[in-house]
């Protein structure tokens, strides 16, 4: 797939940028990231956050924006920067709140009960790494970007949607098996 390179300093039409995001143009996301970096990170830095936290919040906000735009559930009624800024605000507020709760030692029950959560996440992440690159991409495009089989076929150069569908099914089965085996092993060890 050919990507058009964005040049800093030139005005890029907001609508065009948003359309490209919706179509899955990662270069457009990189362009937005660079363009608003200072403005978005400033929000966190001026509200008792470090630069690392600021970058993390901004990146998380862009990931949320990307997923919503990709899934077709987002009708943008404001500027992209305004929308992303509001996500940053929410995320940082949530993080400050989490920190406050931790410092007050008021860990809520859900957190203390769900100790297995992070362990399970690690297992699944490990299994994902064991899949081939194509399998990983097929699954990520299908479940995160919510791409259609046609889009997946186009993006990954498959002959047709049937190939994409079969590939997705097999990759998912493979991942399920890997995770199940790991879970069993974990239970056995426990």
């Amino acid at each position, binding site marked *: 797939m050919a990507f058009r390179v964005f040049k800093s300093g030139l005005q890029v039409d907001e609508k065009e940028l948003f359309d490209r995001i919706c179509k899955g143009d990662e270069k457009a996301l990189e362009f937005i990231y660079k363009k608003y970096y200072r403005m978005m990170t400033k929000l966190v830095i001026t509200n008792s956050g470090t630069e690392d936290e600021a970058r993390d919040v901004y990146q998380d906000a862009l990931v949320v924006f990307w997923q919503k735009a990709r899934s077709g559930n987002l009708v943008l009624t404001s500027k992209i920067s305004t929308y992303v800024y509001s996500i940053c605000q929410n995320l940082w507020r949530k993080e400050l709140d989490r920190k406050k709760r931790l410092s007050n030692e008021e860990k809520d029950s859900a957190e203390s009960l769900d100790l297995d959560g992070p362990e399970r996440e690690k297992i699944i992440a490990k299994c*994902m790494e064991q899949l081939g690159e194509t399998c990983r991409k097929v699954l990520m495009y299908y479940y995160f970007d919510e791409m259609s089989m046609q889009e997946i076929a186009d993006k990954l150069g498959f002959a047709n949607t049937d190939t994409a569908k079969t590939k997705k099914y097999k990759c998912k089965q493979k991942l399920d098996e890997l995770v199940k085996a790991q879970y069993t092993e974990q239970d056995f060890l426990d």
Partner: protein
Amino acid sequence: MSNFELIDDYLSNRLGGTEKEAFEKQLNNDPSLKSDLDFQKQIVEGIRTARAAELKNMLSKVPVGGTSISMDFSVMKMAASLIAAGLVGASIYFYVTRGETPPFDKAATDLNKTTEELKKPEEIKPDATTVVPDSSKESTPAVTTPEKESKKEPAKKQVKPQQEVKAAEKPKIEVADPSSELESSDNTKSENPTANIRRSDITPSQIQVDIDSSNKKYDFHYQFVNGKLMLFGTFDKSLYEVLEITGGKHAVFLFYKNVYYLLDENQHKATKLEPITDTALISKLKEYRQG
């Protein structure tokens, strides 16, 4: 449709309204289906986490410095020179081919015109090339600050903190109005090149700074190593400040004990810090620091 497909479509938001409702009803009456769903949900979440991490990793590799600004600036200057040269050439050609010697006054007027053409791009340069977060197009009255719109436009699926904590405990976020970054200065038309720097273009730098106070050879020096600023000497941490200009030409300054120093980002060898003597530039930097 098999249970596997149903669960898969449900978790990937591909079930229609009625199908979704029917599936949720079925879930309540079938514990094994519920258990399959829980397992699949963990896997799908894992796939999503992996993709989010991949995207974040991709963004982390994007350089966020302002180096491209000065490049654009040079390109514009070059374009302006070419236009001016073209105009001078065209006017000479025009007079020569007509075989007339233009009256001195008229020629002078024409020359002034070309000078004006030359100046124009430089005068508008700060707005045309600056990389302040919102583009100049966005400075129209239609601009609304995020804090206004955030009330009606937050992400639909966003977990609102209010749901989790009492309102009284909600941390306050001081919102920096991004539109303030669009503010223009009256000084942009000045002939002095440093006057093109707008207050809003000067910001506290995010460049990482390391201090080496034990070096015997370098006692008041600096150098840039992989984008990091290295200061040599007995710098008192509370007394120095690094400022960065993002609009127009990109530049980095050090403020230490009431004196300003220009830092050359391409200086990779330890170099002595020399105070800035340009009074116009000092007053601009001062103006910024005093807020």
